């Protein structure tokens, strides 16, 4: 982590990693989609619509994983002042928000045939919607503050406040209303899903995680370069002002 504090070294690593990551992502996505769409049997009750799960569930996992990443990076910004922590958090926010959005949309499309409606105010849906709103707030805060250092620290504080609040929101919403099925994969006592559906699900989850990592590294690279451009522009403006003052 200390060696990577040097942005140039980090960029070199990204340069080397991204082609491999992107390649594995494509292969895993292809395998996962083939397994999910052609190999996995239709559910005895839900029919073909069960295949939405293979996109919906990994997206929902990464929606939460993305926020966890931002929260950990925020600790890095505020406590260890790692120069790349804030870049990592900022780059992860739009990607996490997108996965949250995908989870909401696919869940909505799945809900129509299963529950007969696109949207219900069920606990899971509501807490994911709140998660989406927290992502939007974070992105808005980053965009509202011009100076990257200040924006990064402010967003880090907000991200940690949100991280403390998320479990509370989750429990209060659970208490408020529940229709969504309880967790069936990651639970004590082993998964309750048949292995024929579980394998494609895990392949898709790995593919989505790789996709997240690839996009995240590319977004971090873009953010570092954007900051360099900004710094160059500022020195340029300062030099121009100095030359003008001397003339």
């Amino acid at each position, binding site marked *: 982590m200390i060696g990577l504090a040097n942005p140039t070294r980090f960029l070199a690593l990204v340069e080397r990693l991204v082609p491999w990551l992107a390649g594995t992502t494509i292969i895993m996505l292809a395998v996962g989609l083939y397994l999910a769409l052609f190999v996995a049997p239709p559910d005895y009750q839900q029919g073909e619509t069960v295949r939405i799960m293979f996109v919906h569930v990994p997206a929902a996992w990464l929606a939460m994983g993305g926020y966890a990443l931002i929260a950990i990076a925020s600790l890095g910004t505020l406590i260890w002042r790692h120069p790349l922590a804030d870049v990592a958090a900022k780059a992860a926010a739009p990607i996490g928000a997108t996965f949250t959005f995908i989870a909401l949309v696919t869940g909505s499309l799945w809900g129509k045939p299963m529950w007969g409606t696109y949207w219900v105010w069920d606990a899971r849906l509501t807490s994911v919607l709140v998660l989406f709103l927290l992502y939007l707030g974070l992105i*808005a805060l980053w965009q509202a503050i011009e100076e990257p250092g200040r924006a990064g620290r402010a967003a880090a504080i907000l991200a940690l406040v949100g991280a403390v609040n998320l479990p509370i*929101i989750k429990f209060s919403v659970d208490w408020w209303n529940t229709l969504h099925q309880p967790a069936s994969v990651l639970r004590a006592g082993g998964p309750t899903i048949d292995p024929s559906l579980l394998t494609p699900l895990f392949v898709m989850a790995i593919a989505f995680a790789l996709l997240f990592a690839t996009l995240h590294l590319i977004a971090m690279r873009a953010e570092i370069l954007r900051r360099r451009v900004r710094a160059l522009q500022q020195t340029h403006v300062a030099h121009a002002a100095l030359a003008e003052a001397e003339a």
Partner: protein
Amino acid sequence: MKAALVLLRRDIKLAWREGGAIGVALGFYLVVIAMMPLGLGPDLNLLSRIAPGILWVALLLAALLSAGRIFANDYEDGSLDVLTTGPLPLPAVAATKCLAHWLTTGIPLVLLGPFLGLLLNLPIGTSLSLVLAMLAGTPAVSFIAGIGASLTLGLRRSGLLIALLVLPLYVPVLIFGVAAVTPYVTGPRSLWAPLLMLAALSLAAIVLAPFAAAAAVRNALR
């Protein structure tokens, strides 16, 4: 402790003398409540059923309206810089200012609540539980608003941004706040559980929010 009391007295005095700062929040509360029957129709049964939710949502919005002021005025005239170097630790300053916001905005809004409930045909018998629930929940509202206010110091359009940042964090307060009032409308259920949850949320906010707000203020002043 003395410094905190002086600061608290100063902030309350400023809020009173600012001319309409409190009145605007109360007026906003009244307007939002008055708009609801116009939008939903004058069916008194429907109104009394949804009154707790409407009263709580409107209260959150009205409280947010003045949330920006918790730090903004002191930030603009430089008193916040002085306060950071004063004898009072910055989290204590933040806590005092949030407390002042609760006393000058939260309490008046709570006291107006039952009267606006009459407009929505909320049974008179629920007034007491409404006031209790709001008294227990509004400290959390003010202290969490303090986080939003400190994060958006000195930004343009900070009012809208505060709402976007803070409203999602109010979800638990809203849920338990409504739950504390609703049972009396739809049937008897324990008032205590939601009331204690609201108190717990408020206590947690009072303890934790000042530290987040202080960190954000320090970041804004840097």
